[in-house]
């Protein structure tokens, strides 16, 4: 056992570092402060709404609905964990990472077990987070503590089974040759997980007896063991019986044709001189969908929030403006952070006749263009639904565009000044804090945006001077 643990240690350390670096890399790209504030506010808002809704239901004695809510939540988390397990396994079983491990002097079983542990550790760490909301529902319902504990155990079992199923699914759906045993493992794991999820909770208000609970618990434990065995078998088979398949090069798949018409239409509003630069960045965004996903998800959150909260026309207009602000903010942030020219790539720009100003404005358009289209399309769609007259819509459109221009403008200045050339800008952290403050100030008092625009012009000169002074030493 000790020997096995010693063998795990470097792998786990490497896994830990890789997860840490991955998170740090991701968080660097959307400013940590901004993301934390955004998610904090959003989580708090959603949580308080959920609790208020729960209290309302309990107050009006709609216990069956509360129970339905509990079941819905549990199922939602189970599906989420399945998807997470799938995505995580797809990433962790990437060819290069696997190949690197395979050339180390490690027994295959150790490697397989270490891989499984690497999957399970994040799951265990996040477990309290998944359990907290369902447990709140049970506590609010004044369910006895022993039942709450049992329910939580069921939840854990179902979550784990679901995550393992996701991992097994990823193995089965791998680009490499599939193993005969994998499909049957997946099928059995799928049936068991579905059964587990369905049989998880006895119908309300009937309290489960201890014997029924224990039976469920035993079943859940069995599922766990089976899923574990399925994944382990898949992994071991993968390593032991077809190491050659792991080393095969992938078929050449990355022949990119692009979508010239769509791209031209999208880039239509961009001034001609900036078009090549903006086109390059847009292609980068389109092809780095994995990196861009986090921005897209954040944007989706905001959109959903806006849709959920926009009841009457007044609310719709208000939320449309807020949506424009949030979209501008995130997309402008993304425009630079997902497009940053590392110092090596900067030499392409600097060795061609591209002024710092032209470069800057191209970045502005990368951030502004999606906002522009979103605002235009958003207003067109909402005009049909909510706005009583054209005047109101035009006012809202003008305000949205003004706010978007301002925020993209400010954000681009700060982003350019700081992130891409961090080694030349030790003030980056402070600048981001200022950006965050600016963002919230603009939210609170939009007329201040004019001041920030003026400040932005000053910042451009500073930024351009800085860009001109950058030397490509590599």
């Amino acid at each position, binding site marked *: 056992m000790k020997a096995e643990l010693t063998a795990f240690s470097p792998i786990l350390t490497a896994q830990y570092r890789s997860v840490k670096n991955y998170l740090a890399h991701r968080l660097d790209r959307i400013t940590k402060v901004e993301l934390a504030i955004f998610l904090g506010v959003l989580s708090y808002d959603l949580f308080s709404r959920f609790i208020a809704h729960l209290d309302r239901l309990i107050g009006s004695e709609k216990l069956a609905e509360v129970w339905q809510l509990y079941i819905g939540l549990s199922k939602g988390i189970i599906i989420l964990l399945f998807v997470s397990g799938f995505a995580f396994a797809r990433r962790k079983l990437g060819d290069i990472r696997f190949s690197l491990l395979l050339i180390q002097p490690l027994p295959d079983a150790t490697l397989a077990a270490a891989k499984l542990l690497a999957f399970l550790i994040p799951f265990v760490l996040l477990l309290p987070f998944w359990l907290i909301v369902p447990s709140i529902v049970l506590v609010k319902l004044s369910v006895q503590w022993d039942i709450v504990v049992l329910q939580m155990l069921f939840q854990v079992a179902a979550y784990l089974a679901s995550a393992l199923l996701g991992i097994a699914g990823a193995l089965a759906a791998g680009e490499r040759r599939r193993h005969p045993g994998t499909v049957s493992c997946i099928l059995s794991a799928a049936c068991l997980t579905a059964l587990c999820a369905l049989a998880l909770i006895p119908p309300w208000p009937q309290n489960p007896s201890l014997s029924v609970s224990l039976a469920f618990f035993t079943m859940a434990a069995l599922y766990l063991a089976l899923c574990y065995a399925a994944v382990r078998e898949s992994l071991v088979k993968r390593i032991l019986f077809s190491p050659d398949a792991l080393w095969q090069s992938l078929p050449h798949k990355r022949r990119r044709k692009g979508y010239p018409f769509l791209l031209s239409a999208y880039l239509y509003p961009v001034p001609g001189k900036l078009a090549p630069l903006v086109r390059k960045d847009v292609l980068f965004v389109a092809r780095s969908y994995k990196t861009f996903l986090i921005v897209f998800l954040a944007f989706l959150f905001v959109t959903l929030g806006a849709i959920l909260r926009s009841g009457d026309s007044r609310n719709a207009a208000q939320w449309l403006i807020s949506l424009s602000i949030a979209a501008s903010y995130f997309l402008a942030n993304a425009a630079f952070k997902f497009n940053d020219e590392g110092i090596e*790539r900067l030499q392409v720009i600097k060795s061609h006749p591209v002024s710092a100003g032209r470069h800057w404005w191209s970045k502005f358009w990368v951030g502004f263009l999606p906002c522009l289209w979103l605002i235009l399309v958003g207003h067109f769609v909402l005009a049909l639904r909510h706005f009583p007259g054209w005047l109101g819509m035009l006012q809202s459109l003008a305000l949205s565009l003004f706010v978007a221009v301002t925020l993209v403008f400010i954000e681009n200045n700060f982003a350019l000044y700081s992130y891409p050339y961090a080694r030349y800008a030790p003030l980056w952290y402070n600048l981001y804090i200022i950006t965050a403050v600016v963002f919230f100030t603009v939210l609170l008092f939009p007329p201040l945006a004019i001041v920030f625009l003026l400040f932005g012009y000053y910042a451009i000169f500073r930024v351009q001077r800085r860009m001109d002074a950058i030397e490509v030493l590599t």
Partner: protein
Amino acid sequence: MIEISDLYKSYDGVRALDGFSLKIKEGEFFGLIGPNGAGKSTLLKSLVGLIKPESGEIRISGINALADGMQTKTIIGYAAEEPALYEYLTGREFLEFVGGLRNIAEEQLTRRIEELLDSFSMKEKADELVADYSHGMRQKISLSAALLAETKVLLLDEPTNGLDPESAFHLKQMLQDRCAGGTTIVFSSHVLDTVEKICHRVGIIHRGKIVACDSVENLRTLTGSEQSLENVFLSLVKRQ
């Protein structure tokens, strides 16, 4: 065409260019050789505006390159020692991007791209992402980008690195044609045979200074050696 006088540049107190002066005539094929760290790349980067020298003057086609870098960049084509490309673009898209930066007319750009891709045997791979390219293929795209516009000056830093013999041959031919058409070429290389064969004049650079600058024949006379450029080079560098 290119006049460099009294150029100084240091990195952390180490002199990379130490009062470097040189004149290159219009339409000249100039070879730049020197040991690693001699200052060849620093010189080329200073010419193209990637590095700002501490003092000195650079005039390209009569324009002060340090004061009006944008103007000189329009007449310079530059290929770096390590090809810097955007990995998420295809080779063709990268060349289109560079053509866009240089405002080359679309029709002319398409024709020129096809010619270059053909010369470097890159037509088959032109629509694959740069990320999937080998070092040699990246070098070909980087060189194609430098050769794309009809610039008056070409600055090429170790251009034959990573090229297969056929592409290297085509490159040399293309450069000689461009030179015959009046383009001034500065060619830095470690492959002395190539320099010896194609350059009109050779400058030997050592510790940030030019230690000898003449035709290969005259350099041989200077060192009293009847042997190859390699021997001339070694003899001159040892003297320093």
